[in-house]
């Protein structure tokens, strides 16, 4: 008889926790994208949405603390497992040829690192507002904080646009392998659903990246104006 906590300290247990925390973060990323798509409905809709979120501090802070815990857990376990995996083959092959491992699956550590750096940058930029001092925090006609104006200001700068698009590519690459891999780690397989499971990663990645990049490019190309 062992405690369930002991069960999750094995490598397979760590993988399961990584998969669950990753899926949690994925759900947030999807809703984040859907919420931000309201930029296409104009300043009033987006600013009202932002105010709506800020009006619920318990929900807002639970989400923030939850995301921080999930990300920390995910990263700590990733580092632990990666070190263990490196340790498992002390002498590398002189020649090694991949047969079917996808590019995304081989670059998970790199795409994860790009993603982490991007998230830190994104939080400093749009949440904390310390990257770009030229962005002014003002109120719109409805008396809400003008998030819309901030976005339009940010994505007129080609450097910011390039950094955000690069971050999205990192996110897309990571999700492409992550979602399908999580399903396998959670032990889900069935002849009737295996094609769906295989397609889940690339599909989620494509939808999230297209949605986010659409916002960035629409502003940059002047389709969405201040």
């Amino acid at each position, binding site marked *: *008889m*062992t*405690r*369930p906590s002991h*069960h*999750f300290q*094995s*490598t*397979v*247990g*760590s*993988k*399961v926790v990584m998969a669950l925390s990753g899926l949690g973060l994925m759900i947030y990323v999807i809703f984040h994208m859907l919420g931000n798509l309201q930029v296409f409905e104009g300043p009033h809709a987006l600013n009202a949405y932002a105010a709506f979120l800020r009006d619920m501090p318990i929900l807002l802070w639970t989400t923030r603390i939850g995301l921080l815990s999930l990300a920390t857990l995910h990263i700590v376990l990733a580092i632990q*497992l990666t070190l*263990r*995996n490196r*340790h*498992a*083959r*002390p*002498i*590398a*092959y*002189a*020649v*090694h*040829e*991949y*047969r*079917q*491992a*996808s590019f995304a*699956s*081989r670059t*998970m550590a790199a795409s994860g690192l790009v993603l982490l750096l991007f998230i830190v940058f994104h939080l400093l930029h749009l949440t904390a507002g310390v990257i770009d001092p030229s962005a002014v925090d003002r109120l719109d006609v409805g008396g809400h904080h003008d998030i819309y104006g901030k976005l339009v200001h940010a994505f007129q700068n080609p450097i910011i646009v390039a950094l955000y698009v690069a971050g999205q590519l990192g996110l897309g690459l990571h999700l492409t*392998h992550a979602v*399908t*891999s999580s399903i*396998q*780690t*959670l*032990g*889900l*397989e069935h002849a009737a659903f*295996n094609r769906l499971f295989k397609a889940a990663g690339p599909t989620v990645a494509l939808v999230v990246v297209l949605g986010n990049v659409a916002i960035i490019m629409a502003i940059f190309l002047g389709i969405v104006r201040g």
Partner: protein
Amino acid sequence: MKFTLNIWRQKGPDEGGRFVTYEARDVSSGMSFLEMLDSVNQGLIAKGEEPVAFEQDCREGICGSCSLVINGIPHGPDRGITTCQLYMRRFPDGAVIIIEPWRARAFPIIKDLVVDRRALDRIMQAGGYISAHTGGAVDGNVLLISKDQAETAMDAASCIGCGACVAACKNASPALFVGAKVSHLALLPQGKPERTRRVKAMLEAVDREGFGSCSNQNECEAVCPKRISVRFIATLNREYLRAGVVESGLPAEPESPHAEST
């Protein structure tokens, strides 16, 4: 045909190893890879040099003894075969062939291309068995097993334990091997009594032996000589999760059998 071979030579477990180049001449296209190595070894013996040590036994793809990472791929470039089933006609004449042993911390090199794969045996000893009762022989067809279940169990049971999955995995993970063994026994009624204990014990043994964990890249499936599907890794993970749930339902502190006498 003739080939240039770059072969890993290592005198013993604690010695350093290096690549040594050999020329294989007068190779027939119908020779198997191991026969080609035999002929190279004959030449080395004739010259008074130490022959290249490699493992082999049945030479018909069923024993799981032969190994060799050939040009970066365990069991060579063809899918679904072992090294002994690989023929020299598969390579262009004059090709350079790089031959390495399986590389993993859990598979220490014994000599040249021979590695110690007893870590896999120890994983099996931890739980890869069933309890068999003594007594009279059971009548045939007493245990009814559906055709589909029997076929799936057989797909998993076709694992010959060669360790190519470990060799191909960037993390040196034996997930496909353990997945095949656990799935095979979990699918059949004979394997049910130890089902929960087995998966835990075998995965604990995996961690103890210093193997890596599965990153779901499916490289193992591509090199498996028996083409075992990675679906059995999902089954392994599912069995492990199930074991966690089932076990936590047991009494936390069973009473000591001697509690009354103290």
